[in-house]
């Protein structure tokens, strides 16, 4: 079953506003990653947060992780039209053996209106 699920499925905001997307997952994780996908393109890695970290920043991005609630959020501050894209969380679940694989959610479609 799908490990990460993003919320909301779609988000539309005005340029300059902040955008917050949430990700919930089901099992314990080693790390959680956020990716961006522009229309018709491949995914681009944004940020990785480890299970022992609670918050991480990268430019206008802020990611939080609450392992007790099995959830993460991605905040984009001062959004720009160029931030319009789909955003995916991907989890690295704790499991035995060598079959470690990222599990992606179905994404949040963010539209930033100029």
């Amino acid at each position, binding site marked *: 079953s799908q490990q990460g699920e993003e919320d909301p499925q779609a988000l539309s905001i005005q340029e300059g506003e902040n955008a917050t997307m949430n990700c919930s997952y089901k099992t314990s994780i080693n790390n959680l990653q956020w990716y961006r*996908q522009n229309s018709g393109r*491949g*995914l681009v890695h944004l940020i990785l947060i480890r299970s022992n970290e609670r918050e991480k920043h990268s430019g206008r991005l802020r990611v939080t992780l609450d392992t007790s609630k099995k959830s993460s959020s991605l905040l984009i501050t001062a959004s720009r039209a160029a931030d319009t894209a*789909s955003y995916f969380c991907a989890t*690295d679940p704790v499991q035995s053996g060598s079959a470690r*694989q990222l*599990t992606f959610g*179905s994404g949040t479609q963010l539209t930033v209106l100029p």
Partner: protein
Amino acid sequence: DTAVSQTPKYLVTQMGNDKSIKCEQNLGHDTMYWYKQDSKKFLKIMFSYNNKELIINETVPNRFSPKSPDKAHLNLHINSLELGDSAVYFCASSQGLIYEQFFGPGTRLTVL
């Protein structure tokens, strides 16, 4: 310089045909992946290939087979294509399992 490249970008073919998608990475990574993205944008891992170890997602039909001639290439071969195989296929690579992955631009496969 393109880090992860895939060819072709678009592939339209008839049901029952066999096709291949090629992937190359010039990042020196030791792990490569194939993902399938359906029409709802759900991204599903199909294979990962790390130091000659192939990890297969058990839900992938055996009509799909990855082939790695060397560390920089992981091609995807599909036999007896079906309508349900229509999707966008992404190749990716990383240094080590699970860490930051670099994706190719995708191959949109349409089976008629």
